[in-house]
C-alpha cells in the first residue's frame, strides 16, 4: 500500500485522539509574554538578517494599535497574549543537525509514531517532508534531489538566510503585514514553516509536504509558509497537523501565502487534525489561520483543498486573489465538527482580472453540540469582464443539538459576469441508514459510508494516497455521534 | 435559392468551417451528414446568424448577401432554424412568444399583424395537426417540455412562420420512433415547390422518413462527397471512416 497511509494512519483508536502523547525532551523557551525582546530573541535564534528583524519589529509596532476581530460565529474566552510562550525549540536543535541521522532520537521517535519516518533509508517514497516541531523545522527530506531541478524546499528560517531576495520580494505581498490582528501577530513572532520555490517551467516531480506538531504546553505556534510557483510551473503541497492532548487551549495562528505567476499552478491540500478537546469541550487547539493565494499571472491557478476534522475552534478562509486574466481559483472543503468543536471556515474569491473563474465546493458536517459555519465571499470587481463563479455549500446535521450555518457574501459589480450559488441542508436519513445496515454494515460503518459519499467531491481532490486515509478520518471523527 | 461559396467560420482562432460550397435550389431537400465535430451545428448557426463566429466567404440568399443580415433579419427573410436543443425560457409564455414572432415576421413582410383572436384561431389549428395540446401553449417556452414536445414545438413554429428555407439541426436526436414519425409527417406536409430544406443529421434514420434529393458528406469543415439519398445508406453501412484522414 501507499506510504501516504502511514502519514495519516493511527489518528485515533476508538474515538480517542491517538496523537495526544507528549514528547519528553529538553527545550529552549523564551520567557512568557509578547514583547520587543521576544521578537529580538526569535530573530536571533533563527540567525535572521537585519531586514527580517526590522520587518518583525514593524509588525510588532503595528500590532499595538490593533484589536482582535470579533465578527466570527464561534466565540472564545479572551486570550491573554502575555501568558503565552512564543518560542519553544528542542535544545538538541540549537546547533542544526548536520544530517537527518543526527536528529534527536526522541523527536525522531515522535515522528515515527505519527507515521513520518525522517531517516534517509525510511523516507516516504515520492513525498518530500518538512517536519516542524513547535517553533522549529527539524528536518526536510529529499532536499538534494529537489535542488537538482532547481526546486527550493526548506524551512522559512533557512530561506531568509539562503534566499533573501525571494523572501524579501514575496513575504507579506499576499497577506499584508497589517491585514488583521492575527496576521500581524504572526508577522511579528512567526517561528517556522516551509518555503517553496518552483522555477519557471518546472513541474515538481513529488508531493511536497509539511508536518506540524505542537508539543510544548502553553505555546503558541506561529507558522509561516510561502510558496512561489514561477512561470509555467506546477506544485502540489500538503500539510498535516497534530498536537498532544492538554487541558488548556493552545493557539495556532499561521500565515500561508501562495504566489502563482503566469501559467503556474499550485495545489495546496490540508489535513488538519489538531487536538479537538475532550468530549466535554475542554482543551483543544484554536486554529486561527490566514491562508491566501495570489493568482498574479495570466492563466494561473490556485486550488485549495482542506479536510478540517480537528481543533476546538477552526477559523480560516483560504482565499484566492484572481489578478491575472483567465486565472482560476478553487476551494474544496470538508469541515467536520463533533462534540463541542466549532468551525467558521470558507473562502474569499476576489475576481480582478478578465475571464477569471472560481469554484467553491464546501461540505460541512456537524454532530454532537458542535457548530459549523460556512462563510464565504465572492466578489467580482468592475474590470473582471466575463468572470464566473460557481458555489455549492452543503451541510449535514447529525442530531439536533448542533448547528449548521451558511453565510455567503456575493458582490457582483460586472454585468458580463455570472455568479451561481447553491446551498442545501440535510440529514442522514433513516432510510439510508436502514438500507446500509440491512446490507450488514454496523451503525458507525453506515454513517461513515454515507458521510464519505457526501464529501466525495472534495476528498477526490486530495492526492490519491491521502484521499484513502482522509476517508477513514472522516468516519472516525464522527464516531459516537449517532445512536 | 441559396448559394454558399467558400464559407469559412472560426471561433477563438479555431477554424471549424474550412471553405464550404453548397447550392440549394427552390423546393429541393438536401441532407448534410457528418461525424461529430465536422462542423454541422456551426453551419446551422452561421446560416441563421448567430453571433460569436468569425465568418468569411459568401452566402447568397434570394439575391441578398446573407452575411450582412442579423439573426432576426434573416428570420424575416424566410430562414428558419429548427434547433437541436430548443432553448428553455422561463417566464416567457409559448403563445405570447409565437404571436410576437409571427407578427414581427409579418410586419417585416408588409403583412397585417394578427390580433389575439385571429392568432389563436390559427395556432389552435396548427397545434392540432401536430398533436400539440393547447395547454402546452400556455406554458413557459420549452420549460419542462419533453424532448418530443420541444421538437414538435419547433415544427409548429416552422409551420406558423412559413419560411422559404428551413435548416434542421439534428432534429431526430432524442426522439423515439413515434415522435420521429409525428415530426417527419409535419415536415413532409410542409414540403412545397417554393420551400427548400437543409437537413443536418448524424444518422440516416431521419432520412427514411424525409427523403432528400441530395446527400452531402461534411468532414473537417468541408463537403467531401455529394450523392443522392443512396449515399446515406452507404454511410449507414460503412460509417464515416472512409472520409476521415
Amino acid at each position, binding site marked *: 500500500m501507499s506510504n501516504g497511509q502511514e502519514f495519516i494512519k493511527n489518528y485515533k483508536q476508538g474515538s480517542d485522539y491517538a496523537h495526544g502523547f507528549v514528547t519528553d525532551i529538553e527545550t529552549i523557551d523564551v520567557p512568557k509574554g509578547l514583547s520587543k525582546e521576544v521578537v529580538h530573541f526569535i530573530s536571533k535564534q533563527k540567525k535572521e538578517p537585519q531586514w527580517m528583524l526590522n520587518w518583525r519589529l514593524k509588525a510588532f509596532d503595528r500590532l499595538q494599535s490593533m484589536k482582535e476581530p470579533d465578527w466570527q460565529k464561534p466565540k472564545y474566552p479572551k486570550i491573554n497574549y502575555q501568558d503565552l510562550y512564543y518560542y519553544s525549540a528542542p535544545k538538541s536543535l540549537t546547533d542544526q543537525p548536520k544530517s537527518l541521522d543526527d536528529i534527536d532520537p526522541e523527536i525522531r521517535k515522535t515522528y515515527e509514531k505519527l507515521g513520518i519516518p525522517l531517516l534517509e533509508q525510511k523516507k516516504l517514497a515520492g513525498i518530500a517532508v518538512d517536519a516542524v516541531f513547535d517553533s522549529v523545522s527539524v528536518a526536510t527530506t529529499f532536499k538534494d534531489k529537489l535542488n537538482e531541478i532547481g526546486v527550493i524546499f526548506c524551512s522559512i528560517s533557512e530561506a531568509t538566510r539562503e534566499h533573501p531576495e525571494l523572501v524579501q520580494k514575496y513575504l507579506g505581498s499576499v497577506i499584508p503585514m497589517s491585514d488583521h490582528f492575527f496576521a500581524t501577530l504572526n508577522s511579528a513572532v512567526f517561528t517556522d514553516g516551509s518555503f517553496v520555490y518552483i522555477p519557471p517551467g518546472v513541474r515538481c516531480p513529488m508531493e511536497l509536504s509539511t508536518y506540524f506538531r505542537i508539543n510544548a504546553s502553553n505555546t503558541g505556534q506561529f507558522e509561516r509558509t510561502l510558496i512561489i510557483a514561477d512561470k509555467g510551473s506546477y506544485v502540489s503541497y500538503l500539510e498535516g497537523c497534530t498536537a498532544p492532548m492538554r487541558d488548556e487551549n493552545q493557539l495556532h495562528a499561521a500565515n500561508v501565502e501562495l504566489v502563482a505567476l503566469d501559467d503556474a499552478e499550485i495545489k495546496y491540500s490540508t489535513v488538519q487534525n489538531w487536538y479537538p478537546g475532550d468530549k466535554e469541550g475542554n482543551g483543544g487547539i484554536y486554529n486561527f489561520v490566514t491562508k491566501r493565494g495570489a493568482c498574479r499571472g495570466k492563466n494561473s491557478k490556485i486550488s485549495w483543498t482542506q479536510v478540517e476534522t480537528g481543533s476546538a475552534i477552526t477559523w480560516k478562509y483560504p482565499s484566492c486573489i484572481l489578478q491575472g486574466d483567465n486565472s482560476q481559483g478553487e476551494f474544496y472543503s470538508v469541515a467536520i465538527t463533533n462534540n463541542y468543536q466549532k468551525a467558521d471556515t470558507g473562502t474569499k474569491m476576489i475576481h480582478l482580472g478578465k475571464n477569471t473563474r472560481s469554484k467553491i465546493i464546501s461540505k460541512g458536517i456537524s454532530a454532537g453540540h458542535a457548530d459549523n459555519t460556512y462563510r464565504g465571499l465572492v466578489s467580482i470587481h468592475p474590470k473582471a469582464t466575463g468572470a464566473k463563479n460557481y458555489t455549492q455549500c452543503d451541510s449535514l446535521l447529525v442530531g439536533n443539538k448542533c448547528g449548521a450555518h451558511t453565510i*455567503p457574501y*456575493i458582490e457582483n459589480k460586472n454585468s458580463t459576469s*455570472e455568479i451561481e450559488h447553491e446551498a442545501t441542508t440535510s440529514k442522514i436519513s433513516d432510510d439510508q441508514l436502514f438500507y446500509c445496515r440491512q446490507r450488514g454494515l454496523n451503525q458507525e460503518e453506515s454513517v461513515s459510508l454515507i458521510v464519505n459519499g457526501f464529501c466525495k467531491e472534495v476528498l477526490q481532490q486530495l492526492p490519491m494516497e491521502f484521499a484513502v486515509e482522509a476517508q477513514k478520518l472522516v468516519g472516525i471523527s464522527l464516531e459516537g455521534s449517532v445512536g | 435559392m441559396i448559394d454558399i461559396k467558400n464559407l469559412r467560420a472560426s471561433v477563438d482562432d479555431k477554424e471549424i468551417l474550412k471553405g464550404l460550397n453548397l447550392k440549394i435550389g427552390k423546393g429541393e431537400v438536401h441532407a448534410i451528414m457528418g461525424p461529430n465535430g465536422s462542423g454541422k451545428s456551426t453551419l446551422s448557426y452561421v446560416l*441563421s446568424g448567430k453571433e460569436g463566429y468569425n465568418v468569411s466567404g459568401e452566402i447568397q440568399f434570394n439575391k441578398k448577401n446573407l452575411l450582412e443580415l*442579423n439573426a432576426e433579419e434573416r428570420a424575416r427573410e424566410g430562414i428558419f432554424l429548427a434547433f437541436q436543443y430548443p432553448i428553455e425560457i422561463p417566464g416567457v409564455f409559448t403563445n405570447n*412568444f409565437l404571436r410576437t414572432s409571427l407578427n414581427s415576421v409579418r410586419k417585416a413582410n408588409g403583412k397585417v399583424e394578427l390580433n389575439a383572436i385571429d392568432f389563436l384561431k390559427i395556432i389552435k389549428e396548427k397545434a392540432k395537426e401536430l398533436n400539440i395540446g393547447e395547454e402546452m401553449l400556455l406554458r413557459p417556452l420549452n420549460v419542462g417540455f419533453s424532448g418530443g414536445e420541444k421538437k414538435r414545438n419547433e415544427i409548429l413554429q416552422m409551420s406558423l412562420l412559413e419560411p422559404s428555407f428551413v435548416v434542421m439541426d439534428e432534429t431526430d436526436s432524442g426522439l423515439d420512433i413515434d415522435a420521429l414519425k409525428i415530426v417527419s409527417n409535419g415536415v413532409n406536409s410542409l414540403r412545397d415547390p417554393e420551400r427548400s430544406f437543409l437537413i443536418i443529421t448524424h444518422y440516416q434514420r431521419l432520412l427514411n422518413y424525409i427523403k432528400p434529393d441530395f446527400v452531402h458528406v461534411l468532414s473537417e469543415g468541408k463537403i467531401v462527397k455529394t450523392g443522392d439519398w443512396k449515399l446515406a445508406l452507404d454511410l449507414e453501412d460503412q460509417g464515416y471512416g472512409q472520409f476521415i484522414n
Partner: protein
Amino acid sequence: MENYNEIKINFEKFITTFKTDVNDLEFRKKSFANFISKGFPVSRDENWKYSPLVQDLKKFSQLNYKKSGANILPNALMENFEHYSIIFADGVLILTDSNDAGLVIKKNNSFLKSVKKAGENPILNLNNAFADQGYLIEVSSNISLTKPIVIYNYYSKNFLSNFCSSKNFILLNEKSNVVVYEKTIYDSSIEYLITSNTEIFLAKGSKLKKYDLNCNNKHSTIFNFVKANLDENSELEYFTFSENINSCRDESIINLNGKNCFADVNAIQLLSNNCDHEIKLQINHNEEHTRSSQFVKSALYDSANAIFQGKIFVDSKAQKTDGYQLSKALLLSDNVKFFAKPELEIYADDVKCSHGSSSGSVDEESIFYLRSRGISKEDAKMMMINGFLGEVIEKITEDKFKNIFFKKLSHNYNDD
C-alpha cells in the same frame, strides 16, 4: 460620533405636544435613548453592511416632523375596484373609522403591549420614538373579506416635512381572511425620511395576502419594517414590487410560531438610474412543521444597486422545517451592482432547507433563439426581462392583483 442635538431638540418638542399614555411615553423615551446611544447605523455593523441607508441617513441630522401639504388624495389615484381605503396623505392618516361586519379599521396612536421591546435596530428605535400616525386593522374570527383593503401612501408636491413615521397593526383573528394592497405614490420633490413599521399578527388558521407597490421615488429615504407573527395553520402571502426607488430598505422579520404555518414571500426589484434598494428578510422557524419560501428577482439598469439579504433561521425544536430561498439578478448595464447575502442558520437536523442565488446578464443563447424567430434584439431582451420578473408575479394567488402587477410590468417596458 455624530451630533444628534437637533434630533434631541426635535424629540423633546415632539413629546411635549404629542398626546399619549404614560406607558407609551416611557417606551418612546427609552427607544429614543437607545437610538441616541448608537446613532444612525454604520456599515461596520453586520446588519447594515451594504445598506444604502448608511450613507443616505447622514442627510437627516435634523428631523422636521411638522405636518404640511395637501392632506388629500386626488381622486384620480384611487383604485377603481371596490375596496376599503386607508389613506396617508403627506404623512397624515385620513380615515373614517369603519366597523363593518367583522372588520375594524381605525386610527391608532398607541402601542400594543407585545411590540414594546427595546430593540437593537436604530431606525426602528427612531420609529418607536416618533411614530405619530397609524392604523389598526382587525378582522374577526371566521370572516373572509370579499373586498380588499387598499392603503395609499401619497406624498404631494406640497409636502414640506423632511420626516414622517407611522406604526400600524394588522390583526387577523382565527380563520379570517383578508387581502391588503399597499401602494405608495411620490409627487414631492424634496428630500425626506420615511419610517414605517407594520406589525402583523395572524391567529390560528387565518390568511393574509399583502401586496405592495412602491415606485418612482426620486428623493426620499425609506425604511419599511414589517414584522409578522404566524400561529398554527396560518398563512402569509407577501409580495413587494419596488421600481425605481431612490434609497430604501425593506426589512421584514417573519416568525413562524405555530405548526403548519406558511410564509410565502416574493419580491421584485426593478431599478434604474442611481436607485439603491435593499431587501432584508429574516424568516424564523420557531416551531416544527413550518414552511417558508422566498423568491426574489432583480433587474438592474444604469447605475442601480440592489441588495438582497435573506436569512432562514431554524430553531432546534423546529424539526420538519421546509425552508426555500431563491434570488436572481439580471445585470443590464455596466455600472450596476448586486449584493447578496443569502444566509442559513440551522439548529435542527430533520429539515429541508436550501437557498440559491445567481446574478449575471441576459442569456445570449435565449436571445439568439428569439431573434432566429424574427424578434428584434431589443424586443427579445425585453421579453426575456419581462419573463424573468413575471415568474415572481405568477406566484400571486389573487388574479385581480396578478393582473395589476403584470400590467405594471408591461407598462414599464412600453415606456422604454
